[in-house]
């Protein structure tokens, strides 16, 4: 039982394998952490749905190296992203930017939900308005009479 617990604990400690080679890692842990964050947001251009941190493709390695070189040169994160977009276009960003061409991508699904919700709400309201009012019960009629003072 104890052995099993240790095994499970070890398994939970295991980090997901990254393609980042030990020789690429920067000495400054702060810069390296920023490089990792950026690397997870950049798409490897030959593997489509992998980030450059996850990919062992040649181009991904070059891109990781370029990210680190830019960071060491003092670039901000935004400048590093701009550097990559200037070369590979928006394709290189795993999270597409919010602009006119991608408006449908960002707002499409919420818009459909909103329209559908509005339609359902409108229908329910209309149905309630149209439903015939049930006639007064005997008791209610008595109360009405006393209220009206007749």
């Amino acid at each position: 039982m104890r052995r099993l617990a240790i095994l499970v604990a070890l398994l939970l400690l295991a980090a997901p394998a990254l393609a980042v080679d030990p020789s690429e890692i920067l000495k400054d842990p702060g810069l390296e952490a920023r490089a990792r964050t950026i690397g997870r947001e950049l798409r490897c251009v030959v593997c489509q749905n992998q980030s450059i941190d996850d990919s062992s493709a040649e181009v991904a390695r070059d891109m990781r190296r370029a990210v680190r070189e830019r960071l060491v040169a003092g670039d901000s994160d935004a400048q590093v992203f701009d550097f990559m977009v200037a070369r590979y276009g928006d394709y290189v960003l795993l999270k597409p930017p919010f602009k006119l061409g991608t408006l449908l991508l960002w707002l499409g699904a919420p818009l459909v939900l909103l329209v559908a919700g509005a339609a359902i709400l409108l229908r329910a309201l209309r149905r309630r308005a149209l439903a015939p009012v049930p006639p007064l019960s005997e008791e209610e009629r008595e109360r009405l009479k006393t209220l009206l003072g007749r």
Partner: protein
Amino acid sequence: MNGRRLLFLLPLLTLALMAGFFAWSLMAGRDPSAIGSALVGKPAPKLELPALREGDKPLGDALLRSGQPTIVNFFASWCTPCLAEHPLFMRLKERDGATVIGVAWKNKPEEARAWLARLGDPYRFAGADLQGRAGLDWGLSGVPETYLVDGSGIVRHHFRGPITEKDVTATILPFLKGGLGGGLGGGKP
């Protein structure tokens, strides 16, 4: 109950919409894996590289701003599609007198030189990009890739993947004659 009957048509309508989208995707040749090119219409990136052939001068930026249209081709001796497009570059040089700049990408210079000695050398100028740094500046995703750069140094076209006979007649020859707008073509990387 007209509204309710319309509701039954909804799945059919959804199907028709999806079928339409898929048909369009198939027919219009839409390629979701296409990377596009961020360079077309912009000034060509730096091309400062050591010469591939011994005794040549290193490549400099002035080569791309000579007033003459230039073809920049990234290749490697280890790349099979490069072998496939090689005869087209030989013909562009010999028959059409095109200025082709070759860049050996991630290729040991001696191996690239041996490859050119064996097959013929279509390049007026040739550089070596052993580390792939120039490739990154050019938005390269692999080899082969080819760029058409006009006389003022603006990138006019970017082929990802090997060029074909069709690319030569439809795009490269008109470009060399000086009548081509921007665009992106070529096969998948």
